[in-house]
C-alpha cells in the first residue's frame, strides 16, 4: 500500500455558495467525500449543513460552485442524476411518502434509479426484507409510513438509503429519533459500509456520536467552513468551541427542588389500552421532571393523554389539586397544560405562517379586547417579548417559519406555549435536532421558567440532556413506570442502564 498521495474523493463539492432571498446560507464551502471514510459535518442550527447536502444531492441548486462526481464536474445536478451517480441521502425531514407502505418507501428510489418501467410488488419485497434483517429491525413492511412514529420513519429512511448499492451515503441527522441500541446497530452498519468502500457524510448534533463514527470532520458556522481535519484532532470541547465560537458547558445545573412545594400535577393510575398502564406520579411546582424510555415504551402516549390528544381510559388527573377530566386538547389548555409535540414540523408549526403568527397561535383568546377583536398592542408586546427574549434568529418576526433552521423553529414552538403562561409545560424531545449552543440555551430557558414556578416535563432519550436539567427522571418500560431516579442517581449511565434493563 502506497498511501503517499491523498485518496481521490468520490464526490466533492467545491466552492459552493447559496443564498435564499439575498440571505447567504452557504459561502464558498468545499467538502470531499472519500471512499471508505465517514466525514462528519457539524455546526449550529441554521449554519447550512442541510443546504449543503441538498445541493450535493441535487435537491437544491447552488448559486455558484461545482459538484464533482468521479472526477466529472457539474455546475449543478438534479436528484435523478445524483441517485444514478450512486449518491443516496437520508434527509433531515426524511422525505418519505406517507401514503405508501414501508416496503415501497424502501425500494422505490432504487427502482427509479434502475430505470425500470414496470413495478412488481412481489419482486421488490425480498430486497426490503433483506435490509431489515441486516439492520436487525422489525418494521412492519405493510404499514403505511404516515402511521409510523417518528423513530420508525427515520428507520425507514435509513433502510431506503441503504437498500441501494450506493457509492456515497449522506445522512442528515439520522439518529435524532433513535435510541442508543438502534444507533449502535446503525454505526455497526456504517463500519461495514466503510469497509466496502462507501463514502459517507454524517451530520449529528450529538458530539459523542460524531467522535465515535467519523474519520474526518468539517465544522461550519453561519454558512462558512470553519475548520476541516481528521476527527482524531478534535474533542467535544474543541468542536463546541469551533461551532459556537465560545466555551460550552453541558454539566448538570439544577436548582434545589422544594419538595414541600405544592403539587402542580398529580397523575394516578392512568391507563390507556394498548399504550400504558397504571401510571402514577406527581409533579411539583417549579420542578423539571424527565420522562424517558425506549421507543414504543408509551412515554409519548402518556404525554398525549395528559394533553387530551388521546384521552386515557382510566385514572385521574389533578391539576393544582383539582380533579380535571381531560378529554380534549381544549380541556388540557384550560387546565393550563402546554405541550411541545414530538414532530415539530407537522404538529408544532405553521410553516408558511410568520413567526409572529406562530407565537400567538395558542394564546389568541387571551389577547381579546372588550370589543371581541384582538388587541394589537397586546399581541405586539407578546411577540416582541418572545422574539427577542428567546433570541429567535430571523430578519424579523414576519419571516415565515419555513425559513428557520431547526433550533430556531423549536424556539418558536416554545414561545407559542410560553405565551399561554402554562402551569405545566410538557416537551417531547425539546432539543431533537437542535445544536449544542441552542440546546444549552433552551435548557437554560426551562430552568428559568421553572424557577419562576412553571412545572416542566421533559420527554427525551437524550441522557446527557436529562442529566443536565432534570430534578427527577421517570423511566417508562412497556407502558409501565418502572423507576424514579432522584438526585445523585441521575447520571447518564444509570439512565441508559435503567432504560434498557
Amino acid at each position, binding site marked *: 500500500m502506497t498511501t503517499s498521495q491523498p485518496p481521490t474523493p468520490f464526490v466533492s463539492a467545491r466552492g459552493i455558495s447559496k443564498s435564499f432571498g439575498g440571505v447567504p446560507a452557504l459561502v464558498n464551502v468545499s467538502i470531499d467525500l472519500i471512499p471508505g471514510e465517514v466525514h462528519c459535518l457539524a455546526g449550529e442550527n441554521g449554519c447550512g449543513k442541510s443546504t449543503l447536502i441538498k445541493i450535493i444531492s441535487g435537491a437544491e441548486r447552488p448559486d455558484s460552485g461545482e459538484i464533482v462526481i468521479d472526477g466529472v464536474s457539474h455546475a449543478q445536478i438534479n436528484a435523478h442524476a445524483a441517485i444514478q451517480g450512486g449518491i443516496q441521502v437520508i434527509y433531515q425531514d426524511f422525505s418519505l411518502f406517507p401514503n405508501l407502505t414501508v416496503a415501497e418507501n424502501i425500494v422505490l428510489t432504487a427502482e427509479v434509479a434502475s430505470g425500470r418501467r414496470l413495478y412488481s410488488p412481489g419482486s421488490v419485497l425480498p430486497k426490503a426484507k433483506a435490509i431489515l434483517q441486516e439492520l436487525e429491525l422489525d418494521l412492519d413492511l405493510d404499514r403505511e409510513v404516515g402511521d409510523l412514529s417518528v423513530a420508525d420513519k427515520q428507520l425507514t429512511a435509513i433502510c431506503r438509503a441503504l437498500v441501494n448499492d450506493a457509492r456515497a451515503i449522506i445522512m442528515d441527522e439520522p439518529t435524532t429519533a433513535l435510541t442508543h441500541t438502534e444507533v449502535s446497530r446503525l454505526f455497526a452498519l456504517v463500519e461495514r459500509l466503510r469497509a466496502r468502500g462507501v463514502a459517507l457524510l454524517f451530520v449529528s448534533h450529538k458530539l459523542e456520536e460524531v467522535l465515535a463514527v467519523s474519520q474526518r470532520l468539517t465544522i461550519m458556522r453561519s454558512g462558512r467552513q470553519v475548520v476541516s481535519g481528521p476527527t482524531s484532532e478534535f474533542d467535544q470541547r474543541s468542536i463546541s468551541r469551533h461551532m459556537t465560537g465560545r466555551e460550552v458547558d453541558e454539566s448538570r445545573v439544577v436548582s434545589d427542588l422544594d419538595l414541600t412545594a405544592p403539587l402542580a400535577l398529580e397523575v394516578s393510575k392512568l391507563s390507556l389500552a394498548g399504550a400504558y398502564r397504571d401510571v402514577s406520579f406527581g409533579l411539583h411546582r417549579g420542578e423539571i421532571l424527565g420522562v424517558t424510555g425506549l421507543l414504543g415504551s408509551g412515554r409519548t402516549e402518556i404525554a398525549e393523554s395528559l394533553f387530551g390528544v388521546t384521552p386515557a381510559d382510566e385514572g385521574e388527573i389533578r391539576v393544582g389539586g383539582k380533579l380535571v377530566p381531560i378529554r380534549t386538547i381544549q380541556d388540557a389548555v384550560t387546565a393550563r397544560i402546554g405541550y411541545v409535540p414530538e414532530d415539530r414540523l407537522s404538529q408544532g408549526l405553521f410553516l408558511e405562517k410568520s413567526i409572529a403568527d406562530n407565537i400567538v397561535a395558542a394564546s389568541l383568546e387571551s389577547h381579546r379586547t372588550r370589543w371581541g377583536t384582538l388587541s394589537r398592542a397586546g399581541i405586539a408586546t407578546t*411577540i416582541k417579548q418572545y422574539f427577542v427574549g428567546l433570541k429567535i434568529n430571523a430578519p424579523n418576526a414576519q419571516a415565515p417559519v419555513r425559513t428557520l433552521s431547526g433550533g430556531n423553529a423549536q424556539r418558536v414552538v416554545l414561545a407559542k406555549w410560553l405565551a399561554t403562561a402554562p402551569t405545566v409545560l410538557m416537551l417531547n424531545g425539546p432539543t431533537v435536532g437542535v445544536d449544542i449552543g441552542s440546546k444549552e440555551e433552551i435548557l437554560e430557558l426551562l430552568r428559568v421558567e421553572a424557577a419562576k414556578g412553571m412545572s416542566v416535563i421533559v420527554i427525551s432519550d437524550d441522557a446527557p440532556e436529562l442529566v443536565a436539567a432534570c430534578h427527577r427522571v421517570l423511566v417508562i418500560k412497556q407502558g409501565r413506570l418502572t423507576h424514579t431516579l432522584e438526585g445523585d442517581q441521575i447520571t447518564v449511565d444509570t439512565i441508559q442502564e435503567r432504560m434498557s434493563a
Partner: protein
Amino acid sequence: MVVALLLAVTLFAILNPRVFLSPINLQNIAVAAPEIGIIAIAMMVVMLTGGIDLSLVAIANFSAITISTLHTAIATTDPDLANNLGVVIVLAGIAVGMLGGAFNGFLVSVVGITPILATLATMQIYNGIAIVWTGGSTLYGAPAMLGAIGQAAVANVPLLFIIFLVVAVLVAILVNRTALGRMIQLEGANPVAAQYSAIPRRAVLLKTYTVGGLLAGLAGVLFLARNPTASADYGSSYVLLVIVIAVLGGTNPTGGFASVFGVVLATLTLQVVSSGFTAIRLSSYEYAIAQGVILITVMIFDSVSSSRTKRPKKLDPQLPSEASPTEAALLRP
C-alpha cells in the same frame, strides 16, 4: 391585482372611451359587482380554512326566496305591515342563510365530509328544496325598503356598492383582527398544528361555514335589492366564478392565506373586463377565453415574481410589525 385592474381599465378606456368611460357604464359596474363580490368574499373565508363552498349561490337564492315568500305572505293580508316588517323579514332571510351555512359546517366539521363533496351535496339539496318550495316559478315581491336600497346612490355611487365595501371591511376585520379570524387562518395553514395549538377545530369550521352562509344570505338580499324577484336558479354561473375571483384576489386554494382587499379588486377587475368586452363588441366566448387567460396569467405572474422575491422584508427585528399587507391596504384612506 391593483396592476391588473388599472391595466384593464386603461385598456378599455383607450379602446372605446365613449362607452366604457360613460358614467352609466361605471355605475353599472358598481351595481353588478356587489352581489358576486360578496359571494366571492364568502368563498374566500371558507377557502381560508382550506375548504370550499359550492352551495353559496344556492344559499343566496334560498335566502331571497325566504324573504320574498315571507313578504308576500304578510303583504296579502296587510301590505303596510309587510313593508314595516321589512327589516325583520330581511333578517329572517339572512338567518336562513346562516342556517344553511351552519349545516354545511356541521357536515364538514362534525361528520367529517370533504368540503367539496359536502357542499356539492347541499348545493343540490338547497336548490332542490327551493324548487319544490317555489314550484319552479319565479317569485315576485320584496320589502319596499330593498327596492329603495337597490336604487339609491350616494353622490352617484350606488348604495349597493357602498354596502359591498362595508361588508369587505367588516370581513377584513373579522379575518385579521379577531381570534376567530386568526384561528381560521391557522386551521387552513396546518390543521394538525392547529389541533396541537388547542384551536377548537370543530367550532372554528362550524363558525366559518356559518359566516359563509351569512354572507351568502346577504348576497341573496342584494339579489332582491337589484330586482324584486327570487328564483331557485339564479346565479348558477357564479358557483365556479367566485372561486376564480377568490383566487385571483390572492386566496391560497390550499388555505391559510387570503386578502379581502384582493378579492374586492379581483371582483372589480373581472367586472371591468366583462363590460369592456361588451363595449368593444367581443363575444361571450371570447370573454370566456379572456377570463381563463387572465386567471392563468395572474397566477403565473404571481408565482414567478414571488419565487424571485420571496424574502421577508428587512424590518426592525426589535419591533415586529403586526399589520399584514391586507390590513394596511384596507386601512389606508
